[in-house]
Structure formats: structure tokens, C-alpha cells
């Protein structure tokens, strides 16, 4: 178990940025609107459809769980 935790930490470090980055929230979601993603069933969802009729709250997770 300890080895797995060490490897997990090392994996995270390996992917880390070398220098601090800035977040850049967009003023508009135009670049997101035509992106098509799969849901948990494998069905396709066009992101722009999520806010077509009502506001959408998009939550970007680091990871599930």
C-alpha cells in the first residue's frame, strides 16, 4: 500500500507544471458550445445544448471521487 501511495505521488509530480500558471476564465463559452462529450452511458452530449434553455453550471473535476 505504501508503494502505491509513493507511486501515486510521484505520478502527480511528474505531471506538474514547472512554473505557476494563471487561470483564464473565458467571457463567453463559444469554444465550449460545439464540443461533444460522452456521458456515463457513452451517449453523446453537445455542451451548448446544456445552456440552450437555462443557465448551466459546469463543474470541472480534478478527478471523480
Amino acid at each position, binding site marked *: 500500500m505504501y508503494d502505491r501511495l509513493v507511486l501515486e505521488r510521484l505520478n502527480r509530480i*511528474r505531471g*506538474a*507544471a514547472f512554473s505557476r500558471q494563471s487561470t483564464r476564465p473565458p467571457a*463567453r463559452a463559444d469554444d465550449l458550445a460545439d*464540443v461533444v462529450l460522452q456521458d456515463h452511458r457513452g451517449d453523446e452530449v453537445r455542451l451548448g445544448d*446544456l*445552456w440552450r434553455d437555462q443557465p*448551466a453550471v459546469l*463543474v470541472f473535476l480534478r478527478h*471523480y471521487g
Partner: protein
Amino acid sequence: MQLHRDREKFDAVGARLAVIGQGTPRHAEHFIDEYGLDGMTVLVDPERRTYKAAGTKIATVDELFAPQIVAKALKIAATERLVQGRTQGHPAQLGGVLVVAPGGAVTWSDLAEDASDNPPNDEVLEAARKAADNRRSA
């Protein structure tokens, strides 16, 4: 991020909550089963196209493992009774929240600056309520 626990509140104010993660549909399905999120929109973006378009960032080692960040994350996990699963996708990818109004304007955003950085649910809910109210009054 525990916004999914308040999804009924988002429904009540007239906003749609959608969760995007880095894994596969199987990971999303497990996430739904584990947290009882039947009916919720849970999407997968293994290529992280939406993360890049949303302006999120990749964390430095310090932004992942600085003592104050780890302490805050452990506190949140204990409070929320979270057990962190194995990380899928890019290990240093940070997340965030966007509120998008009909028409495509991003009316509110909070993108994580480090691994422990999450907006309070109440702030996100208020932003969603305002976006829904603006739409109704338009």
C-alpha cells in the same frame, strides 16, 4: 467539489448542473453510483479539451502538495467524509466552475488555483440563481 450534493437546489433556481471529469464513461458511472446521482449530467473529457477552453490550469508541485494545501484538503475530505479514489487522467490538472447563461455568456467563474481550492456551494448557487433570474427578466 461537492456541488452535486446540492443539485436539487440548482434545479429549484432553474439552473442545470453538469459535471465534467477526465475519465471514461465507466468512471462516470461509478461516480454516479457511489454518490447516488441518478439523473444528473455527468460527462467525460479524457482529452481535456473543455478544461483548456474553460481556462483551467495545471498545478505546480507546490500547488498540489504544499503543507497548507494538503491540510485544507484533508480537512475538507474529513468534513465531507470523502475517500479519494485513484486519480484518472492528468495528475496535476485542476478544475473549476463556470456558470453559462443561455446565449453563451459566462456570467460567473471560479477556477482552482491549487488542489484545495473549491468555491463554496452557496456562492455557486447564488451565481446560478442570478443567471436564471436575469434570463426570466429578459
